[in-house]
């Protein structure tokens, strides 16, 4: 299953970044496909990006909400939030495990042989603060003399933007190098921090700082496609704890907001206690060739 997931991740990476003419044009894609929402974190200033980043678009709309209202345009983010919410209601954080280019990047970094460290669990709450403050409140309320806010998350934190847009554009357009300053080095610091951290820990950005993952996580209890735990089959052996790339203790919280439905726990469970369901109906799970908890106890 992990093999299939890697192919799906690669496919989404290519779909989200399908404009390969950028070395010739030295600019970004400007076609009509950019009206489509990218499900994962994928900077739309990336030269190859063919869709819009929901976080970038949402911050831009919120930052400019005063000006648009003054001009009689009600651009408050309905279209973007509608797309994000529909994706969230459908698969939630499954996007992170199957369709996010930056998630794939972190997974590949974690394959580099190195000591592995866990991430302190309370750090997972930072991403909700990032969503609330850097994506919504600060762009809305901290405005300049013209009434325009800033895209705080993109400007000060997003490592995907630095990796996919900042660095490539500096290579493609050498004239931009004169413009780099403290802001760029701040962003570069966060990119390097998360790259190094990804080598020694699994998906640190997704677990601690990603506001898009935080938003999708809000749908963990109500999303259409999710993992299901059969408590009758679960022996609390904690095999699912060891394999989860997000540090989720699945048998303790099967509707955890950090579960990315990567199915690693389902594969690791020897008792067929974890399965995939769509709208309440089981669609995938291992066949009962292995022992159930009751059978194991009886033996």
């Amino acid at each position, binding site marked *: 299953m992990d093999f299939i997931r890697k192919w799906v991740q690669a496919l989404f990476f290519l779909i989200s970044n399908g404009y390969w003419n950028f070395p010739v044009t030295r600019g970004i894609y400007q076609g009509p496909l950019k009206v489509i929402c990218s499900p994962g974190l994928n900077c739309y200033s990336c030269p190859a990006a063919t869709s819009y980043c929901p976080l970038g678009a949402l911050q831009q709309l919120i930052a400019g909400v005063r000006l648009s209202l003054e001009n009689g345009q009600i651009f408050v983010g309905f279209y973007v939030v509608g797309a994000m919410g529909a994706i969230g*209601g459908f698969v939630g954080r499954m996007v992170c495990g199957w369709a996010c280019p930056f998630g794939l990047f972190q997974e590949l970094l974690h394959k580099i042989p190195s000591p592995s460290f866990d991430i302190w669990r309370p750090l997972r709450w930072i991403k909700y603060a990032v969503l609330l403050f850097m994506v919504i409140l600060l762009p809305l309320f901290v405005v300049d003399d013209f009434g325009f806010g800033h895209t705080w998350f993109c400007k000060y934190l997003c490592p995907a933007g630095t990796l996919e847009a900042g660095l490539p554009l500096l290579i493609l357009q050498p004239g931009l190098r004169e413009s780099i300053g403290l*802001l760029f080095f701040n962003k570069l610091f966060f990119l390097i921090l998360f790259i190094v951290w990804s080598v020694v820990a699994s998906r640190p950005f997704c677990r601690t700082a990603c506001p898009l993952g935080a938003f999708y996580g809000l749908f963990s209890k109500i999303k259409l496609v999710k993992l299901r735990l059969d408590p009758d089959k679960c022996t609390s052996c904690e095999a699912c704890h060891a394999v989860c790339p997000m540090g989720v203790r699945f048998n303790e919280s099967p509707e955890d907001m950090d579960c990315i439905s990567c199915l690693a726990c389902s594969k690791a469970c020897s008792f067929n206690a974890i399965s995939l369901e769509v709208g309440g109906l089981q669609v995938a799970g291992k066949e009962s060739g292995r022992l159930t908890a009751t059978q194991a106890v009886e033996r």
Partner: protein
Amino acid sequence: MKKKKSSQAAKIRKTPFVVIFVFLALGAVGISLGEPSRVLEQAKQICLSCIGIG
């Protein structure tokens, strides 16, 4: 057979469908207000300060 079908139908969770519908309706409101053209306009431009340059 009929009984089996009805018991299966009872297990189907309706909440996700309601949530998806609500957000799709929200998106449709955004479309009717002309938001996609604004999003497209933004996405076509390179926001240098947004990527840490300038």
